[in-house]
Structures are given as structure tokens and as C-alpha cells.
């Protein structure tokens, strides 16, 4: 759309409005009602270069298109007894929103909303050789050769694997999701004290999202197939509740039901490496071969089959109440009990006809998890200036799902028993039953946990401007089927709030906590004490200050700090810490101008240790420095640093007529991962990764001119620029032949969707706002 056209249209529209302005009044009376509203219509002329996926990640900005940023209608009774409002934002766009609300003041409140949230992953970048039919991905042709070496694709024979992934043989696929969310809520207060509420929500998610899976016995063959997973989810949520509140007590009961249904729960996809034929002409093999030359039909199954998220449902009842007791004591309590259920039928182990299916003890999980929460809290203010709080909380996740057992073992990646697991014997005859298969006798583990928390706080107002508090707490975490049965965590720390003058506020808090596991079950395979279970010392501090030396100036600053230390963890996470200072200001030198800005710096460091192992006998005492040769140990450190700036100004040039606003946001983040060690012969040395960098600039400047009491004009300019540097993404190609430096042959299919690239956008914004 050309600037000239826009200017002409805007001018004509303005003239028309002004010509008829005498008939437009603020608030129109229709009988016993008063109606007001607003309509904004505009255009977004502009230009964008670069990737759209990041620019419109969660929004729909149609550059050079028309837009209705807002449509609003308000209806009220002249007696001020009822209200109704309709609000729409960007109708017709993928991120459109509609909301209808009506009711009787103090008696009834009804709200209905439709909202859409787009989530764009990639556009115009990803490609796939597959043809999709529902949940099945077909290959209409297959590569005649399965080799792809380290030389560029275009110099290799046309029959080479990588040519199978040429542009001519692949289809473009855009990846993204669209969430369509509908909500309906009603709140009814028939008589004072009683409140009934209900609600229904639905969420429909459609689109495609990339995910990958594996063919082959070992990851070293890179037989990865990356596909656009079709998403079609339906979620329904029901809420019903009632509460009675008297002067000194209240009691409420609520039910929540949540239902998830996956319309496409199974994914079937052809194996590009089985070149015995296409479609029905393909013949399964129970084995993979690593041969790189010649026609080789023993390339595993014709297709793989994935079980996507199963449908599930959850129900929760919650009883909550509170009472004001004697001696200025308040009791608050909540108890909830729920069910999380899932019982989808199991798929067979494999669709590979060359493998005899092992037995399984059940046809479905009969998944049944029962979350329970009980809380009791007492707050007391009987003594002046002294505030006491004590609480107990119990949370239990009781997993009653069936324990499923696999007496004959498990088929891994559609192949017959060749997975190199520690307890698996050598290859069995082709097509034979997998004897001594991996994980024979395995049983599933219905993980469960419960958490008890007790806390006590005492706060005292030493003076009107100084308050101190000390808080203590204990938490016991009990787990089933994990490495640690019980952990106890204790915490203590003070809080100080100082307000010597109304213009100065200072807040500080600190808490130290330490977590001790009762016993850690380690074995030859599992040597690391996992960070969510291991002994941990934690320090957490928070500072905030606000100073208003004059009414026209406010300065504020904050500081957040968290440090975790894992003193008993020889391997795994050693420690991490995060600190984040912030400063900001708000300045209003005159009544018609306001300037604001803030800056935040955030840093997150972590440190971990690992050991490169080829046998379970290798451990830190015999394979790390000081413990004997060879040196298998290595360490890694990470550092995330992010700077964020936002600033802006609001200027009222002519009160109620002309205003100007400019807002700027900037974020620059880096994520660095270094590593060193693993110097033994045959080991892969640990090396640094290239730093991830991302930058975000955003600026919006706009004038708002009230041409007439019913007509406003908005004119603005929007700038948005972003860059993303991520080595792991930037090097992506579908065939990856020249990227991997390993000696193995590369035979993987990638979508190449993650290449986002930078973008720069310049967009104008012209809109007329008609209000009445």
C-alpha cells in the first residue's frame, strides 16, 4: 500500500467525520440505556526484511494491511443497574480477541471471551521429503544410496542421500501453532454473603511442531528423522464453586474438571534408510546394518510409530475457609483432593513385522495419580505491633497407576535385541524372538512424592517506620522410586522494612536454607547426585529501595541474589548463582511531560562436573585427576548475561488534544558454555561451545491528536530489530553432511526449521479513532 494512498484515504475519512460530526455525540441515549463506544481503524504501511518467525512469534502484524486495533461498545442502564460491554482487539487477525461482559451490579457478572494466540516457529525455512496424511508421513521416493560424506552435497552423485533432500524433492512446511481459547465465566451473588461461580473454558490447538525420533541401534549412526508433528488438541475445563462469607468466617467449595483429548495421538513415518521399496513394496528387517556401500535392504523397519501425548482428564475438589478467632487471630485452611487419569490403549511395541512382539503385562496404564493438598495457617496480631504467622502444608502426589512389567524385555527403536545395554547379550538370529532383550523383567516405576512444610514467622514494628521479621521453616520431601527417600530442608532468615520518611523506602530480606538427604542410593550406573535431590545450601537475598526526593522524581533500585551450593555432589551440578541489579527512575518535571527508564543486569553462573565413561567400573576415584589414569573427568561452566533497558516519555503537548509518546525497549543476552578436561586416550576432549547471542530492539513513537471530541487520530512509527546467533542452529542444514566431524556416515533428515535469522522492521501506524 503506498503512502500517498493512505494519506488520501485518511484525509477523506477525516473530512467525512468532521462533516458529520454534529450528529455524533458522546454517549447516545436509547430509551433507558446509555450507549458509548469506540472504533479504531488504521493501516500499517511498512517494510520488513529478514525472518518473520521471530518477528511475529506470538502476534500477527500484517505490514501494509488494514487493521482494527480496537472496537468497543459499552451499554449501561440509566439507573446504573446493569452493564454490558463488548471489546474486540485486532478482529480478523490471528491474535484477535473478543470479550463480552454483562451483568447486574453487585448481583451478576457474566463474561465470555474468545482469544487466539499464534505461536510461530518457522516460516518459509523448513522443508521435508515426507508427504503427510493425517498422522502418517509417507515417502513417495527413497534415496537409492544411503551415503552422505563430508563433502558438499552439490558435488556428490545425484543418487546420494543428500540429494534425496534437495529442494526439488522436498516440500516447504511452515511450523507454528494457533491456540483458540474460549472462556465463559459467571458469578452470581443472589443474597449478600453467598457467591456462586461457574465457568467453562475450551482450548483448541492446531498446527505443526518439529520433533525428532531415531531409527537405529546407536546414536552414532545419526539415523534421526525430524518431522513436523501434527498438533490437534482439544482441552475443556469446567469450574463450579460456591462460597458463603459471613462477617467473621467464610467457607467455599469448588470443583474443577479438566479434559484433554489428542485428535492425533499416533504418528507413523517411513524409514528412509530401508530402501527395499516404497509404501506397500517395502519389507521390514529386524536389524540395522552399518554398511555404507551397495544396495542394502537390512536397514531396520519400513516405518516407525510414535505414541504422542495420550488423552487425559483431571478432577479436583477444593474446600477452603477462614475464620476470625478471638485475640485477633485469623485461621485460614484449604483442603483439596484430585484425580489425574489416563487410560489410552498401548500401541504394540513395534510395527516391524520381522520382530516377534514381546509380552506386556497390561493393555493400558490405568493411570491414576491423586494429588492432595492440605493447608492450615494461623495469623495473630493480639499484641500490638507484633505479627505472628504459623502454617502447615501437606502436598501428596500419590501415584496409583498400574505397574506394567515386560517379562520378555522391550523392543528398542523397532529392532531385534541389539541395543548395547549393559545387561543385553549379543545379536539374536534375524526374525527370531528377542531372547534376553534389553530390560527383560523391567517394570515401570510409578514415581510419587509428598511434601510437608512447616513455617513460622514473627514480625515486629519497632517503630512506625521500622519493621523487622524473622522467618523459619522446615520442609520434608519424601519420594518413591528415586535415589533419595527423604530430604529435609531447613530455612531461616530476617526481613527488614525501613520507611523513615514517606519519600524513602528500603526493603531487605535474606534467607539461608540447607537441605539434607537421608540417604542417597547410588550404583555403578548412576553416580551423580541429582541437583533436585542432593544436599544443597542455598542463600537468597533481595533488596529494594525507592526514593522520591521531590514529587516530580522517583528513583528506585533493586537487587536479587540466589546462590546454590551442592557440597556433597562429586559429579553433576556443583553450584550456581544468580544476581540481578536493577535501577530506574520516573521524572515528571512539569505536569505535561513524564520521562521514565529502567535498566536491569542479570547474570547466571553454573558449574558442573562429569566423567566420560565407557564402562561402569570407571568412576572418579580411578578415572579422574588424583585417582589414577586415564583422566576421564571433565568440567563445564556456564554464564548467562543479559542486559535490559527500557525508556520512554509521555508528553501532553496540548491537554486533551495532542499528546506524544515514545517507548523503547532493548535486550541483549549471551549464553556461554565452556568445558575442559577428558584428556584420556580415546576420549572426546571437552571444548567450549560458541556463545549464544540474542538482541532485541523495539521502539514505538506515536502522536495522538484529538481532532474533534469524537474523533482522534493516531500516527506512529514502529521499529523492531532482532538478531539470534546460536551455533547449534546457525549450522543447520537438512543433510548435515559437512558439519559433523565424526567418522560415521551421516544419514539423518532434519527440517532445518530452527534457522530464524535476523529481522528488521520499519512500520508506520495510522489510525482514526471514532468514539461516541
Amino acid at each position, binding site marked *: 500500500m503506498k503512502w500517498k494512498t493512505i494519506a488520501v484515504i485518511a484525509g477523506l475519512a477525516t473530512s467525512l467525520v468532521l462533516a458529520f460530526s454534529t450528529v455524533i455525540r458522546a454517549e447516545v441515549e436509547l430509551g433507558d440505556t446509555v450507549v458509548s463506544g469506540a472504533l479504531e481503524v488504521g493501516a500499517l504501511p511498512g517494510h520488513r526484511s529478514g525472518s518473520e518467525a521471530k518477528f511475529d512469534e506470538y502476534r500477527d502484524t500484517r505490514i501494509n494491511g488494514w487493521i482494527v486495533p480496537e472496537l468497543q461498545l459499552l451499554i449501561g442502564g440509566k439507573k*446504573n443497574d446493569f452493564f454490558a460491554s463488548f471489546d474486540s482487539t485486532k478482529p480478523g487477525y490471528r491474535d484477535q480477541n473478543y470479550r463480552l461482559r454483562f451483568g447486574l*451490579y*453487585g448481583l451478576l457478572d457474566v463474561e465470555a471471551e474468545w*482469544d487466539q*494466540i499464534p505461536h510461530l516457529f518457522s516460516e518459509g525455512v523448513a522443508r521435508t521429503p515426507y508427504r503427510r496424511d493425517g498422522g502418517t508421513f509417507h515417502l513417495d521416493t527413497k534415496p537409492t544410496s544411503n551415503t552422505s560424506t563430508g563433502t558438499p552435497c552439490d558435488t556428490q552423485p545425484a543418487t546420494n542421500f543428500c540429494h534425496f533432500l534437495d529442494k526439488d524433492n522436498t516440500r516447504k512446511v511452515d511450523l507454528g501453532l494457533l491456540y483458540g481459547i474460549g472462556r465463559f465465566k459467571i458469578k452470581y451473588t443472589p*443474597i449478600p454473603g453467598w*457467591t456462586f461461580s461457574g465457568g467453562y473454558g475450551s482450548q483448541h490447538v492446531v498446527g505443526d511442531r518439529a520433533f*525428532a*525420533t531415531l531409527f537405529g541401534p546407536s*546414536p552414532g549412526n545419526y539415523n534421526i528423522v525430524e518431522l513436523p508433528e501434527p498438533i490437534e488438541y482439544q482441552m475443556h475445563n469446567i469450574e463450579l464453586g460456591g*462460597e458463603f*462469607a459471613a462477617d467473621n468466617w467464610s467457607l467455599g467449595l469448588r470443583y474443577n474438571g*479438566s479434559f484433554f483429548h489428542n485428535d492425533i495421538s499416533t504418528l507413523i513415518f517411513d524409514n528412509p534408510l530401508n530402501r527395499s521399496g516404497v509404501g506397500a513394496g517395502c519389507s521390514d528387517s529386524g536389524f540395522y546394518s552399518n554398511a555404507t556401500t551397495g544396495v542394502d535392504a537390512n536397514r531396520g523397519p519400513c516405518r516407525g510409530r*510414535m*505414541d504422542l501425548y495420550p488423552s*487425559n482428564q*483431571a478432577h479436583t475438589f477444593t474446600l*477452603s475457609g*477462614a475464620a476470625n478467632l478471638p485475640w485477633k487471630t*485469623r485461621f*485460614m485452611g484449604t483442603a483439596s483432593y484430585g484425580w489425574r487419569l489416563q487410560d489410552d490403549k*498401548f500401541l*504394540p511395541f513395534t510395527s516391524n513385522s520381522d520382530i516377534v512382539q514381546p509380552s506386556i503385562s497390561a493393555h493400558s496404564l490405568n*493411570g491414576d495419580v491423586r*494429588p492432595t*493438598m492440605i493447608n492450615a*495457617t494461623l495469623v495473630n496480631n493480639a499484641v500490638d505491633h507484633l505479627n505472628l*504467622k504459623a502454617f502447615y502444608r501437606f502436598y501428596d502426589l500419590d*501415584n496409583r497407576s498400574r505397574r506394567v512389567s515386560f517379562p520378555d524385555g522391550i*523392543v528398542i*527403536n*523397532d529392532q531385534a535385541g541389539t541395543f548395547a545395554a549393559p545387561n543385553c547379550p549379543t545379536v539374536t538370529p534375524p526374525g527370531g524372538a528377542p531372547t534376553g532383550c534389553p530390560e527383560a523383567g523391567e517394570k515401570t516405576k*510409578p*514415581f510419587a512424592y509428598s511434601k510437608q512444610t512447616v513455617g513460622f514467622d514473627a514480625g515486629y514494628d519497632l517503630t*512506625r517506620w521500622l519493621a523487622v*521479621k524473622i522467618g523459619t521453616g522446615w520442609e520434608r520431601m519424601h519420594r518413591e522410586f528415586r535415589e533419595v527417600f527423604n530430604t529435609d530442608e531447613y530455612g531461616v532468615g530476617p526481613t527488614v*522494612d525501613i520507611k523513615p520518611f514517606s519519600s524513602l523506602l528500603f526493603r531487605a530480606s535474606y534467607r539461608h536454607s540447607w537441605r539434607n538427604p537421608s540417604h542417597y542410593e547410588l550404583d555403578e550406573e548412576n*553416580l*551423580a547426585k541429582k*541437583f533436585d535431590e542432593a544436599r544443597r545450601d542455598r542463600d537468597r537475598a533481595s533488596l529494594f529501595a525507592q526514593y522520591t526526593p521531590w514529587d516530580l522524581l522517583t528513583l528506585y533500585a*533493586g537487587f536479587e541474589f540466589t546462590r546454590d551450593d551442592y557440597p556433597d555432589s562429586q559429579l553433576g551440578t556443583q553450584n550456581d548463582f544468580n544476581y540481578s541489579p*536493577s535501577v530506574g527512575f520516573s521524572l515528571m518535571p512539569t505536569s505535561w511531560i513524564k520521562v521514565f527508564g529502567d535498566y536491569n543486569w542479570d547474570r547466571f553462573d553454573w558449574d*558442573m562436573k*562429569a*566423567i*566420560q*565413561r565407557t564402562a561402569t567400573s570407571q568412576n572418579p576415584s580411578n578415572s579422574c585427576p588424583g585417582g589414577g589414569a586415564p583422566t576421564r573427568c571433565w568440567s563445564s561452566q*556456564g554464564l548467562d548475561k*543479559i542486559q*535490559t533497558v*527500557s525508556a520512554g516519555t509521555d508528553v501532553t503537548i496540548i491537554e486533551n488534544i495532542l499528546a506524544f509518546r515514545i517507548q523503547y525497549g532493548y535486550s541483549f543476552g549471551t549464553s556461554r558454555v565452556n568445558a575442559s578436561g*577428558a584428556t584420556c586416550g580415546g576420549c572426546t576432549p571437552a571444548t567450549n561451545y*560458541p556463545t*549464544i547471542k540474542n538482541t532485541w530492539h*523495539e521502539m514505538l513513537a*506515536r502522536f495522538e491528536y484529538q481532532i474533534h471530541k469524537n474523533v482522534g487520530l493516531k500516527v506512529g512509527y514502529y521499529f523492531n530489530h532482532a538478531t539470534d546467533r546460536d551455533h*547449534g*542452529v546457525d549450522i543447520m542444514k537438512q543433510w548435515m553432511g559437512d558439519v559433523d*566431524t565424526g567418522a560415521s556416515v551421516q544419514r539423518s533428515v532434519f527440517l532445518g526449521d530452527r534457522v530464524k535469522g535476523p529481522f528488521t522492521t520499519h512500520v508506520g*501506524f495510522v489510525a482514526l479513532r471514532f468514539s461516541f
Partner: protein
Amino acid sequence: MGQSELSSSILGPLKLFTVIFFLALAAVARAADAPAPPKEPVFVGSDVCKACHTPQFEKFAETQMGKIFLFNARTLREKQACESCHGPGSNHVEAGGGRGVGGLITFRKDAEPGKVQNGACLQCHEKGMHTYWEASPHASRGLTCTNCHTVMHKTTDRYQLAKVDDKTPFFWKRADIEVCGQCHLQRKAQLLRSSHMPLREGKIGCSDCHNPHGTPNPSQLKQASVNENCYTCHTERRGPFLWEHPPVFENCTNCHEPHGSVNDRLLKVTDPRLCTQCHIATQHPATPRGKNSVFFFNRSCTNCHSQIHGSNHPAGIFFQR
């Protein structure tokens, strides 16, 4: 006893008596001048308030609370209207009005202790989502309701927040995020991170996950656990699954930072290191990989282990099916 001794024995008490007499006289005189203790105030009705405070009254009448109190009151407290929050106004009226006159409760910044100001609101708003206010971290730090809400004039469509929405075709600065961001500066900055949920697009806000008025749950979450909070939108990951991944089953924030991250997919630590924190089994999990390795590029470990949140497939023991 000589005459001088007699004089000194009388003069001392006489002096003392004189001092006491004049002090008493002064006290009586002061008491006579002291104002009489204030009368117990009574309610005068909101029409009286309107007579002097017309602009404030008219603005208040446009708010939801105003519509209820002034036009649709059903309880005695609602019918008290202005005085249900500010207290009975008879002393204020009789004294001729004025700031701070008459013992009314005022909500100007720091004019009254926070508990007194909050007490006015808690007369009605001590139920439903405000049930746990007294136990909340915000209450314990002395925050007042008026730190986040305005009462006397209409602001946001719902909840009368102290900030207003700023909707543009490009972003939507929600009022609830702006209010929380007054103090939670780090969280506000995290919204601009590369990997983020759609908060700065206005699609969700802080109050979709948290209830700032207090809850019996950690971090003032609305649901009983972190995972249940996440499942309200990401219901597909609720399971339960045949094969569960324990840190996923227990807490989504073991791996994800929901407020925003510089790493993809809201991960706290970039992969493969995220996984290496726990997995040091033999073979590939704990082998450091080069930057051009399939264990690093693209989706790293989830290039193969894509069902990392759990699998219901009998062959999904390693989250590959």
C-alpha cells in the same frame, strides 16, 4: 526552737505548697481551655460527602464499586458508601471539613498505617481470592491495597488497577504486569528475553499464574503445585505416562524458567548441559560433545529423546517413542 528555726521549718513547706498551688491552678486553667474529647462520630450519608467532594464523587460513581455502593447497595455496609471505607463523617462535617480533620480514614500514601487502610478494604474483600491476604508475603511486607489498586476513579476494565493497559498493534502492556513490575524488576526485565511466554504480547499476565493476594501454595501460585499451574495451559503434558521422567513429573521449573530465558524453549541451562547435570551413565550421556556434533546442534539430546516429558509407548523407556 528559736525564731529563725521556726521560720525555716515553715518556709520550706510554704514554698512547696505555693509551687504546688500554682501548678494546680495552671492545670485547672489548661483543663478548662482544653477542647472537649471528640464525640463518637456517626454516619451522615454520601449525599453530604458529595456536597463538598463533587468531582471525586462523580468519578467514583463511574467505577464498579461506585455503581454498587451508590445505586445498588444491598447490605448496610454498601449503603454506607463513602463512609464504609473512610469511616463515619459527622465529626469531619461538623468541623467544617479539611484534610485530616474529623478522624476519617484517608488512603493517601503513608497517611495511615497500612493495616488501618487495608482494614477498610478487608471488611468486604476478605473472601474468595482474598482469603489468604493476612498470610501473604505482600501483607507481611506492609503493602497496602492502594499500592496496586485505585478506588476513586475508573482505570482498568477489571480490578481497578493502579496502572492502565497500553494496547498497540505491536505489543500490549498489560496493567497487571506493569503493577507487578513496580517492585519485581528482575521479572519485568525477563519479559524481554528471547525465549518467553506471550506476556509482552498481552496474551497472558502475572495473575494468570499467581494470586498476589495470597494463596496456600508456594510463590503465591494459584494451583497447588508448579506443575498443576503449568497444566492449566499445557494440559497435554499432564499424563500420567507409562514412562515418566522424574524431574519433569515433580517440577517443570527443574528445567524451565517460565519468566523468560536467553536459552531456547525457556530452558534454564542450555542443552546438552541441562541433561548432563544429572545423566552420567556410561556411553553417550556424559561424553562431552563438540560443537558440530548431533548431540549438540539443533535440539541436542531431544534430537533423539523427543518424548522427554514422558512417553506412553511400551517402547518409550528412553523417551524415543
